[in-house]
């Protein structure tokens, strides 16, 4: 056995006791939270480590892993434990003392699990995955793993382009994992011990499972992908995403582990809806989670009650990609406020749509104006908003801002993207103009005296008269499976110039301007549309010390640039090159349900500034998901059901 030289796990525990007081936030690794599940490892056949490749504070805020934790621990024959990326101080101590990466619940070394499953939420956490595997003593590459090693699997939105991680993962689960995870566990039970290759071959027969080692990629002389050659007979290709059609019946946790320390989103969450068909052309989630499926209001309310009873949370969030679009939102919010207000539980809606209806919802749920409201117009002019199909008319935007300040908030946050296809200086100027217009609206609302304590609302601001506007500009990253998947990303110099343009013009003291690190967005563009060769650069970057790249202070672009030059790869090729319709794209191994023809048509319409309507409220524009995957849109409001169709 490989692990002969290891001290017994009791020794590890002793060492951990000694090193934990030395790290910055030991609670990140302590475990023992309320509702954490501690099962006897000897009582189950399959142990799964659910791994989140970022800090505890980030990972514990994520819903997907909580759902899987609940589903797996609901099985008698299996257990799931959690593990997060150790912060740099902890990593140093683990390496120094020779302690392998361990799970939160039982402090079991990761390599003693049958399955280690990573969730892929963000490309810039890929180096953390390699680092975690290395800390766990699990061979980085799938081909280097033997019988005694865990099966390393991954899922989540970034799995829709699995190729950059192909060398490191034994398999990917594409799409909703609620059912697929059972099949993966069952197959693992049946085939374990009968040879790793046989196990992987059996896994490949599960719908939605992609086993990269069973395919070989062929490139042409220009370095473009020619195709994938299967290494075995009868393999499904491309791999179709899984869709939980009956979201209302899908398993949902009745309790979450409740952290002791402060985390990013420390609250109970109920997912009211999955999917969004607004059709924003830059948005990957829009395509990945189609079609829209809603939970019934009764189910939502029942889940809310159970979760609050079992967690004691003082805040509840109704989550989805765009919760003001949930067809029963008004009714659910009304009912919940009646129930929650006397108990002192606050309700929150992440991601508000830009319209006065959403402001009305926020008004209903935020008795105290604790926070600013955030909206995402995404682009500064009507022309560019039409290009990206962001359904926000200029007038809408002003109505929204007016409503916000009129209802007593004193600050608003506006999200934009720079570097969008067809963007010109006029569009940037549009962002500036919108920011100042919002400020004027706020100030005149304040002068009219409406906003001070409007309708008895409490103001909680040091200076209630002061209006402020925050403008946040991220850099556009073209993503796989979107109408902009063929587009070049704006060059680094261009992005920096455009940031400068905004910085110079957004100088008012009442406006704060935030922007994203441009080299980071460039790396994100490279990784998100990368192919298998990018995996080499990724591994090299990790060797050069890259970790926690998504954390601005820890991102070292020069290490990445070095990694690319050493592996002979060009970042330009991945980030800044325009692809043709004919080119085979790395993520073609995954069928997200939407056809390439639809995406191309959307791209053409985008460049012509033509809008496409949401299929929930109008005719089906034929993205392909419903007929091709045999699913359909499910709205909770019976009056609306049937209006949409594939």
């Amino acid at each position, binding site marked *: 056995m490989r692990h002969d030289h290891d001290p017994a796990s009791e020794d590890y525990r002793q060492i951990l*006791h000694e090193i934990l*007081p030395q790290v910055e936030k030991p*609670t990140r690794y302590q475990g023992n*939270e309320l509702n954490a599940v501690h099962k006897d490892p000897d009582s189950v056949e399959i142990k799964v480590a659910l791994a989140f490749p970022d800090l505890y504070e980030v990972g514990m805020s994520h819903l997907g892993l909580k759902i899987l934790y609940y589903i797996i621990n609901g099985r008698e024959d299996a257990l799931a434990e959690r593990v997060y990326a150790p912060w740099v101080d902890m990593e140093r101590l683990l390496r120094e003392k020779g302690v392998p990466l361990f799970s939160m619940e039982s402090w079991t070394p990761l390599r003693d699990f049958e399955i280690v499953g990573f969730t892929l939420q963000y490309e810039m956490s890929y180096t953390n995955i390699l680092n975690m595997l290395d800390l766990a003593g699990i061979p980085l590459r799938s081909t280097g793993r033997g019988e005694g090693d865990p099966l390393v699997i991954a899922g989540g939105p970034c799995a829709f382009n699995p190729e950059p991680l192909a060398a490191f993962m034994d398999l990917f689960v594409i799409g909703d994992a609620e059912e697929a995870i059972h099949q993966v566990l069952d197959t693992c039970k049946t085939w374990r011990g009968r040879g790793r290759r046989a196990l992987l071959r059996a896994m490949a027969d599960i719908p939605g499972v992609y086993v990269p080692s069973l395919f070989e990629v062929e490139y042409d002389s220009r370095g473009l992908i020619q195709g994938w050659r299967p290494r075995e007979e009868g393999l499904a290709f491309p791999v179709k995403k899984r869709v939980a059609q009956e979201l209302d019946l899908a398993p949902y946790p009745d309790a979450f582990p409740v952290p*002791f*320390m402060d985390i990013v989103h420390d609250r109970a969450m109920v997912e009211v809806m999955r999917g969004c068909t607004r059709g924003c052309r830059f948005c990957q989630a829009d395509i990945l989670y189609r079609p829209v499926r809603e939970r019934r209001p009764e189910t939502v309310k029942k889940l809310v009650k159970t979760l609050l009873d079992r967690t004691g949370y003082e805040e509840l969030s109704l989550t989805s990609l765009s919760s003001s679009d949930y067809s029963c939102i008004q009714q659910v919010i009304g009912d919940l406020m009646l129930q929650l207000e006397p108990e*002192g539980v606050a309700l929150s809606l992440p991601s508000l749509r830009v319209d006065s209806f959403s402001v009305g919802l926020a008004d209903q749920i935020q008795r105290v104006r604790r926070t600013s409201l955030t909206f995402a117009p995404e682009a500064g002019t009507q022309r560019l908003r039409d290009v990206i199909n962001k359904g926000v008319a200029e007038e809408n935007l002003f109505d929204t801002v007016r409503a916000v300040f009129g209802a007593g908030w004193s600050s608003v946050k506006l999200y934009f993207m720079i570097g969008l296809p067809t963007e010109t200086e006029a569009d940037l100027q549009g962002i500036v103009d919108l920011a100042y217009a919002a400020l004027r609206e706020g100030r005149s609302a304040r002068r009219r005296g409406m906003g001070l304590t409007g309708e008895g609302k409490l103001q*909680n601001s040091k200076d209630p008269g002061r209006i402020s506007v925050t403008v946040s500009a991220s850099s556009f990253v073209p993503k796989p499976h979107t109408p902009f998947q063929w587009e070049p990303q704006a060059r680094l110099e261009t992005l920096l110039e455009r940031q400068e343009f905004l910085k110079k013009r957004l100088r008012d003291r009442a406006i704060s301007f935030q922007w994203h690190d441009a080299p980071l967005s460039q790396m994100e563009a490279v990784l998100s549309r990368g192919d298998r060769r990018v995996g080499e650069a990724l591994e090299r970057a990790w060797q050069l010390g890259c970790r926690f790249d998504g954390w601005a202070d820890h991102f070292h672009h020069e290490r990445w640039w070095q990694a690319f030059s050493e592996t002979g790869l060009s970042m330009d090729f991945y980030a800044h090159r325009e692809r043709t319709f004919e080119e085979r794209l790395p993520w073609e191994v995954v069928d997200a349900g939407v056809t390439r023809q639809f995406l191309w048509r959307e791209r053409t319409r985008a460049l012509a500034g033509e809008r496409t309507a949401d299929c929930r409220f109008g005719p089906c524009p034929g993205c392909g998901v419903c007929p091709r995957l045999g699913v359909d849109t499910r709205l909770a409001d019976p009056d609306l059901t049937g209006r949409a169709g594939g």
Partner: protein
Amino acid sequence: MADEMARIDEITRIRVRFSKGDPVRFISHLDLTRAMERAVRRAKLPIAFSRGFHPMPKIAYASALPVGTTSEAEYADFEFNRPVEAEEVLRRLNSVLPEGIRILEASRVPADAGALMAMVDLAEYRVEVVGWPDLSRDRVEEAIGRLLDRREIPVERRGKKGARVIDLRPLIKEISWQGEDHGRQQITMRLGMGNAGNARPEEILESSGLPSAGSGVHRIGLFVTRGETFLSPMELKGR
């Protein structure tokens, strides 16, 4: 909530002693208060809330336990706006508290009892000295003796306003060797706390030249000095 302020004679104040055990040894005081508030919510106890923008449940602690220290002598006063039995508070909280936090005693105190934090002035700790494999009883006792012989024990504290030096000596009321367990020397310390200043057991170990990193510190008592006697907050009953 805050609006339905109960009549003063309905306000019930329950004092509890609770433990913070090994499973939660690394959580901060803020983490602990959050866990306690959520437990009160789950237990559906009629806790009173403060008024203002952020109504806060009325739970007042005797002291903040440092991260890494365990304790069986933490105290808190809970204010309820409906009558509730101390026994019931204990039972209902224990059925929902996370592993490692346990209510050990509960009893009613007058609603106008003084604040615990302002009253406690002495803490007792059991310290297991870990770090040197062959540490003998003699060596520990010698180190303690030498420390107690000093007139002044200046240590540097870093606060918001920069570093300042405080004298630990007047805060040391008693230190004694207690026993040995698996080669680890155990001592107890009675140290002053509160308005007169706090002494931390780790500082005492450092000042006496004993290993402090990795040593297990466990609080076993908190007291209010009344003349020659030391009363626990439970004995105090608010007067």
